[in-house]
């Protein structure tokens, strides 16, 4: 005997047709709208860049941590471990502070190579990216 027959003897079932289609469309939409993935821990610095007429800076943790331990930048150079907490000015960099401790034309390219750091697409918001695996901590 079919489960739950109504007065007309018809079996009640969830109206699968329409909701199923909706879910299918939702999944397809999610598949298609998956954004291009930045590398894990890439940082967009745009607190001042675009306001000053330059493209945002893309800092790549993966590149730098192959060459320097975290403590070099986050202890010796004084970078706070939170996106947006650092006020990095070009004048500081030219004076050898922050990025300028290495990016001085001797250890790494100097600050006259603008487009190598100011390499981001217009309109990017300051933040840590490449968090496709977990969406990262909510606060970032």
């Amino acid at each position, binding site marked *: 005997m079919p489960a739950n027959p109504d007065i007309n003897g018809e079996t009640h079932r969830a109206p699968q047709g329409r909701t199923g289609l909706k879910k299918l469309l939702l*999944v397809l939409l999610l598949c298609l709208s998956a954004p*291009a993935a930045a590398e*894990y821990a890439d940082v967009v610095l745009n607190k001042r860049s675009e306001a000053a007429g330059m*493209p945002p800076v893309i800092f790549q*943790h993966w590149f730098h*941590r*192959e060459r320097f331990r975290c403590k*070099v930048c986050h202890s010796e150079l004084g970078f706070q471990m939170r996106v947006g907490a650092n006020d990095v000015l070009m004048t500081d960099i030219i004076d050898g502070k922050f990025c300028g401790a290495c990016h001085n034309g001797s250890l790494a390219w100097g600050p006259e190579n603008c487009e190598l750091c100011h390499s*981001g697409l217009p309109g990017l918001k300051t933040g840590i990216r490449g968090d496709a695996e977990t969406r990262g*901590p909510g606060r970032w």
Partner: protein
Amino acid sequence: MRMLALLALFWIAASPQVGAETAPASRWQKLAEDGLHDPANPGLAFLQEPGQALSRLPPDVVGNRVRWVEALRQGMIAPRASIFPGTQIRVLDGDVIMPRTGEMPMVRFPHKQHTEWLDCSNCHEALFKSKAGATPVNMLEILGGEYCGRCHGAVSFPLTECNRCHSVWREGTGPDHAGKP
């Protein structure tokens, strides 16, 4: 529902990050296609592609798809520990067991692996008190980017990797004890 499950399976199977043990360079997005770099910027030609650098290192399935601690341990990378003369390089060997983890296995925090990368001052005394048990760490705050979550989930292995921290089974539990996880 079956259709949905099939689609989800296909999605997972087609996703290059999941479950792959080998590491072809194609697993990493090219700079010009990563949604951050401006492909019209001629400077991109001078920047290293992540796949070129990271495919040589011990593979992982999350984060940068690299086991950074292992890469350092094996000497595959030799990142500098200081750039200024006279900086004291402090490394501490000593595990901290965090027992108040509810039904999850306890957390073992290894100072060695952390201090090889970080300085004591990166965590102490702002994020964590030096005294064991004095810091009210909880997962909600960690997921919100505090405590361990300042790095894990942002730059070091992400918070989906429960067992890498919750690694110490309580007495009478664990994989060897039938019926208990």
